[in-house]
């Protein structure tokens, strides 16, 4: 159970659109003014395969957190479908209920993710109680909680039952949050920046735990992160998001060592490493989801456009005017870039997929 299977994906997202309406004052509203709409997720197709670790990477404002929250049911999409094991979620409330048990979320800040007035036992048992599960596999509630805590590496589990979150360290709290997710034996865990608020020396242990859960229990993971190094460490595939769209997706080693999209290249360029200061290639601030550019949404900042490379390849017009989705450039490796597609065509003219 250590390699992702090639069979059907366990989670599919199709054509998803999620936007937020800005607020308007009473007077302006009566005058007919509408608030600005922030398009957090602007057309995303994604699939998560059984037992795989998929990293969703990007800067703040790219929509990765909104996408994760919509998958968890915390936000409602304006358009699009989410399918769990082939079944669309909207179809019946029974499916939705099953989904809520088998897809769990691990939040960024373990301190805020635990109710300070509840003991560890109650926080972990909450999932069982909401779903009305009093026993499973012949084990009563307290044994299930103990098992989940032990699997998260907190041993002996009984010692933690009556402890409060503030009595634990950051790493231990995150383990409790993970135990709370594990207790329902999920198929998928959605982790939003699982280690960014932890001390650096502790992160490795939590990442080891997450990988171990995948290896031992076949749990698929969607890891939202801004840290490409984290993706390098644990992800099978990486999806890079920009302004509400996935602009590149593929196996981690390919995307992070042979990036095809200029945005991915720029991100990799600024990852700090030994050997001198990297010159940031992109100017300006991360862009605004309320004002998405025409054509390729990256074109105003794209180094290829700015340097003229796009023009000499003849695609600049398309970059400025033609919006595009992901194009498969090598098997499994997709990018939403006119230039990359053009170059691919030149290299391999007859195998355009």
């Amino acid at each position, binding site marked *: 159970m250590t390699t992702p299977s090639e069979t059907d994906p366990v989670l599919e997202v199709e054509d998803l659109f999620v936007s937020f309406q800005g607020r308007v004052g009473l007077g302006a509203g009566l005058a007919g003014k509408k608030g600005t709409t922030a398009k957090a997720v602007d057309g995303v197709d994604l699939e998560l395969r059984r037992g795989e670790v998929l990293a969703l990477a990007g800067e703040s404002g790219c929509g990765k957190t909104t996408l994760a929250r919509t998958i968890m049911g915390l936000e409602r999409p304006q358009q699009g479908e989410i399918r769990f094991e082939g079944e669309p979620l909207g179809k019946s409330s029974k499916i939705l209920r099953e989904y809520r048990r088998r897809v769990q979320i691990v939040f960024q800040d373990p301190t805020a993710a635990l109710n300070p007035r509840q003991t560890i036992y109650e926080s972990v048992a909450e999932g069982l109680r909401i779903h009305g599960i009093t026993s499973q596999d012949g084990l009563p509630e307290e044994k299930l909680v103990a098992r989940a805590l032990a699997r998260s590496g907190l041993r002996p589990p009984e010692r933690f039952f009556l402890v409060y979150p503030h009595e634990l360290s950051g790493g231990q709290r995150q383990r409790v949050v993970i135990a709370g997710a594990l207790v329902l034996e999920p198929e998928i865990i959605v982790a939003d920046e699982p280690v960014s608020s932890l001390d650096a*020396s*502790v992160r*490795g242990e939590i990442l080891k735990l997450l990988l171990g859960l995948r290896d031992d229990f076949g749990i698929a993971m969607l890891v939202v992160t801004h840290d490409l190094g984290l993706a390098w460490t644990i992800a099978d595939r990486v999806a890079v998001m920009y302004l509400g769209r996935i602009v590149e997706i593929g196996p981690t080693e390919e995307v992070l*060592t042979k990036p095809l999209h200029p945005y991915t290249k720029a*991100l990799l360029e600024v990852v700090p490493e*030994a050997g001198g*200061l990297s010159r940031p290639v992109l100017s300006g601030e991360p862009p605004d989801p309320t004002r998405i550019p025409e054509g390729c949404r990256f074109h105003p900042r794209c180094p290829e456009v700015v340097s003229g490379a796009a023009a000499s390849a003849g695609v600049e017009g398309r970059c400025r005017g033609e919006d595009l989705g992901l194009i498969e450039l090598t098997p499994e490796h997709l990018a939403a870039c006119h230039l990359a597609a053009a170059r691919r065509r030149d290299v391999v003219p007859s195998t355009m997929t």
Partner: protein
Amino acid sequence: MSVLSVRDLEVTYRTQAGPIPAVRGVSLDIATGEVLGLAGESGCGKSSIVNAILRLVPPGTTVTGEVLLNGENVLTMKPGRLRAVRWTQASVVFQGAMHALNPVQRIGDQLAEAIVIHGQSRQREALVRAGELLDQVGLPPRRLRDYPHELSGGQKQRVMIAMALACSPSLIIADEPTTALDVMVQAQVLSLLNELQHELGLAMLFITHDLSVLVEISGRLAIMYAGKIVEQGPSVSVFEKPAHPYTEALAAAFPAIGDQRFRKAPSGLGGDPPQPDAVPTGCSFHPRCPYAFDACASTVPDLYASGEGRRSACLLVPKGELIAR
């Protein structure tokens, strides 16, 4: 010429639960135009060092040792001299500095305030200088009239840097200046700091938990753990060939993308960084150290010489066994 020279600095806070030693004997030197990096996680005492250098510690805190700023000992300065020295010789870009801006005052006025307080100019000239400062940090002067909420995170951080430069200090202390920023903006701010540092010949003390950032921006670095320095030396050399188990663990948390050794192989330390009031005996790192042996629990290591310009507070060094990566 040493801009900052700290000798045996000890900072002990006074709390209801008793005295808490946050810094337990730290010595460092920064020469003109040099960037020294200080790395460490929560509870290691790095922010306490920042506060101690400019005597910004809460009343009742015991600070012993020597802090020589351009030759003068800050710890024994009279209050008047201290106030004159603060910001004109050494200034700070604080952690979460973006929230240190007054939301109801325009940027220009806040910058000018720093200048006027130090009696360097009057309001009108101060505003002109504020415009120059904004220009130096890459913001258009028309931003002087903006309020903080009209700026983005990265822009606010630039304003804080401008404020730190306001009185032309010889030393800038940057405490986690890029931690809350996106990678792209972080790169811009780091690039800016680097440029300014070279242009103005500033000395800089750069404090962060992110080792990879330090390797980029600082020539030398020091690693702190539980109130003490456990390793120091040239940045690249320390990062690539650590001579202390903690440095090794910290460096492993910042993998090099493209390096196959890090693929699917996360490594970390069990346990947590110790709280200042519960520091282990002997070598403070020994409970979490994968190389610990019996002497580690009882012997407090010194900073032993461990190579060219390098020091490490690990008992393995005098034994002649430098840890291998």
